[in-house]
């Protein structure tokens, strides 16, 4: 294998795939990426079995061939190379030589035959979906995904499509973020799928590639293609909780608050909550909300803010992190808080017709 390639073309791909390549692995080949040179292009493959990625970059191929190389070393070297033109060649015993200007590096590679094969997928079944919509849906849900490995069925975003609509939902068992958007293209999905969090982060990275976003399901994986990159993400097996049921329908205490005012009041009051004890109490009465936190070690804090509300008095406690998380990702000036009583789920919405619903479970006081 022998080729020359532009540093500029190579570097972004190498950077993007670092997070796919495992650092500590039992299978050393998985710390490598596979390069396949042929037909004036080079294909770069990375995989951690769960997520596999293939990027195609134009290159001047002098001799076709393939090899695998340590992903991190390759990236670090490429970053430091002095010139735009890079020459890569493979000699005896999988020895790789990288040359640029006066620099020259030799690295030992491993034969490409040992690298896991890229999952099969059928380009024909991919459909175009709106990049902006996907981006918004991911951004508004991913923060609620559980990071507890043992509850694997909620360690990803649930993705569903039904006639004219796409939906995403994420939960960690204490709150739920869900969003639905209309779609023009028809997406064929018999049942919802759970896309692992790590895979979603990879999708986010390719969203600003050029071209339109294509997606489709193959077997137990989901394929995403944008520009020169294809991602195949193995879906999480298991049942996502039927979340429709946990979204309350009869919350009749409707409150409108300035998002910024609420967020900063929460931040101030929670100064007195420790990193473990995160509950603060919200007392709501006509036109007013007071936030209260107390901590046996530090003392208590109280703050009052104006709200739009004219129902009965009530009191409820929430974890401040679950509140701040959602306030931070919303963008409207005001938010709507829909409550029922101190022991039932609360709802946060933007007040716009944007399909977004956030459910937050209270704390017992």
């Amino acid at each position, binding site marked *: 294998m022998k080729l020359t390639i532009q540093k500029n073309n190579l570097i972004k791909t190498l950077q993007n795939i670092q997070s796919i390549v495992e650092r500590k692995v039992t299978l050393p080949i998985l710390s490598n990426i596979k390069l396949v040179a042929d037909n004036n292009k080079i294909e770069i493959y990375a995989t951690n079995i769960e997520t596999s990625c293939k990027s195609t970059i134009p290159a001047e191929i002098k001799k076709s061939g393939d090899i695998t190389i340590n992903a991190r070393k390759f990236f670090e070297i490429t970053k430091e190379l002095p010139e735009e033109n890079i020459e890569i060649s493979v000699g005896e015993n999988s020895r790789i030589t990288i040359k640029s200007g006066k620099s020259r590096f030799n690295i030992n590679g491993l034969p490409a035959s040992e690298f896991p094969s890229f999952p099969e997928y059928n380009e024909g079944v991919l459909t175009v979906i709106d990049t902006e919509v996907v981006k918004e849906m991911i951004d508004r849900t991913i923060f609620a995904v559980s990071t*507890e490995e043992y509850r694997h069925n909620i360690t990803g975003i649930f993705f569903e499509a039904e006639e004219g609509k796409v939906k995403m939902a994420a*939960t*960690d068992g204490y709150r739920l973020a869900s969003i639905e958007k209309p779609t023009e293209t028809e997406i064929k999905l018999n049942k919802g799928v759970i896309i692992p969090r790590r895979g979603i982060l990879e999708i986010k990275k390719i969203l600003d590639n050029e071209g339109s976003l294509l997606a489709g399901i193959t077997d137990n994986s989901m394929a995403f293609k944008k520009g020169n990159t294809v991602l195949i993400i193995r879906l999480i097996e298991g049942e996502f909780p039927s979340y429709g049921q946990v979204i309350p329908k009869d919350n009749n205490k409707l409150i409108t608050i300035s998002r910024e005012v609420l967020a900063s009041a929460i931040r101030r009051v929670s100064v007195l909550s420790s990193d473990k004890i995160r509950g603060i109490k919200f007392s709501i009465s006509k036109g007013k909300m007071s936030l209260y936190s107390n901590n046996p070690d530090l003392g208590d804090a109280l703050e009052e803010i104006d709200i739009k509300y004219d129902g009965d008095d009530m009191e409820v406690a929430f*974890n401040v992190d679950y509140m701040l998380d959602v306030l931070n990702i919303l963008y409207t000036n005001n938010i709507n808080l829909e409550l029922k009583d101190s022991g039932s789920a609360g709802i946060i919405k933007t007040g716009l017709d944007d399909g977004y619903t956030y459910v937050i479970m209270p704390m*017992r006081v």
Partner: protein
Amino acid sequence: MIKSKIKVMPPDLAAKIAAGEVVERPASVVKELVENSLDAGAADISIHIVDGGKKLIRVYDNGEGMSREDAVLAFERHATSKILKDDDLCSISTMGFRGEALPSIASVSDAMVATKVAGEIAGTRIRVRGGKIEDISDFGCPDGTTVEVRDIFFNVPARLKFLRSNAAEMGRIQDVVHHLSLANPDIRFKLTHGKNILLNASANSDLKTRACDILGTDIMRGVIPVEGNGGGVSVMGFVSNSNITYPTTKGVFVFVNKRWIRDKGINYAILQAYKNMLMRDRYPLAVLFISLPPEDVDVNVHPAKTEVRFKNPRFIYDVISDAIRNAILQKNKDYPDGTVTALHTSVPQDRIREPAIHYQTQDIADRQAALFEKAFHGTNGISFPELNFVGQLWDEYIICNDESMFYIIDQHAAAERIAFERIRKEYYSYGIRGQILLVPEIIEVSAAEKEALDSSIDVIKDLGFEIEQFGGNTFILKAVPEILSGRGCSGLLKDMTEEICSFGKAARIEDAIDAILVKLACHSVIRGRRKLTRDEVVSLFKQLSEVDFASNCPHGRPVVKMFSKTEIETMLKRR
């Protein structure tokens, strides 16, 4: 005419057998009756209890039954069909052998036996009250034997007063039934207390299925099978990995020749096999069946027959330790990043096992513990915020020093310690707040745990949990303590139930609550390695300095270990 199988024991033989009361409490009655049923070859045994056995104990079996003559004889002292001459005592292989159970039981209660031999037309019913036969009659009943014992100790008020609460007595009965049913998985066992079905284990089960019935399917999920033998001794059964542990030996079930026994040496042999994988004062789950030639074990040491004397104890302990250790090692080989590294113990690691040093090593462990104790209580005087942070060892230990001392701080233990104080303060100041779950979690518990949970739902609520019964042995968990949100809780809940089961045993309720709070704290901090920034260390030191070290932490491992400069200088021969 049916041949009589029961003989009255010659008096000298009777005298040879260790004396002692057979009937100590309802559980001992249950044990005797069920053992009789097993001896009678029953395939189906049902035990019904009312009021912890104080009101009624009824054991039904479908075994061989008794003829009228035998049944009458059975109520005479030292009547037994099992031992005929002195030599027989040495090769005891049936369960009961003293021939005094039924008469002893009948002498302190209102007892009734209804029994029929298969093929006979009518059965026999005998009523005995306070040892006096009141009635013998023909009786229509199914094949097998039913024994009813009512109003135990009605004529021995001193004994009656000695009995504990219904729940406590029932707990002991359950233990007895669990032991017997684990040892006999082929036999159907049913245990009811009033209206509650506590155990319903079907016939022809294997050990694993039976253990699931008793211990709960959840717990059985991660067990490791154990098998080993040597020199005529064989061991088989299973143990838990180091994730499932108990504060007492209550998860340890040891059977010698199918008889449940308690033996300190064996318990120690089990712990030895785990070496540094268990925390101090924690025991694994272990169900072990040890078989050895009857002449190598003396079962008659203790009247309640739960202790044995081995001819060659060390050898047996070695076989047990080896079998368990091999099983664990095999398991760890199969799953290289298993759970083995997460837990620590105070027992030194460098002890190469040699058959002869078991008891010596126990001494070392004790001495070591005492040393730690000293180090631990010595932490009072340390001024943490003033310590100079030197660095971190293996991302697990903080190394620091001051003028004259060098300190190693276990960061996990320190974090746990701080969390414990915080939770404790919270609990006593306004109760621990619970975070409600979006979708309630379903939890399956064992029968014993169910009773414990039932009786303590309110206590648990103060701890931030919210639990509701769902039917059978299933509960729904609706809220978890705030401090735990985001962490797995069902394991903790199990652990807590353990503690609650032993509430009765704790000297003070505060101790029991503290024990639970320790658990909460332990689950709330991140385990394992973590690189700490200087800021984090400073904040940890500050928090440590606010913790009152002298205050109770009977369960804790040491947080700090220190060496004086002099010690180090001596070590390096500078002095």
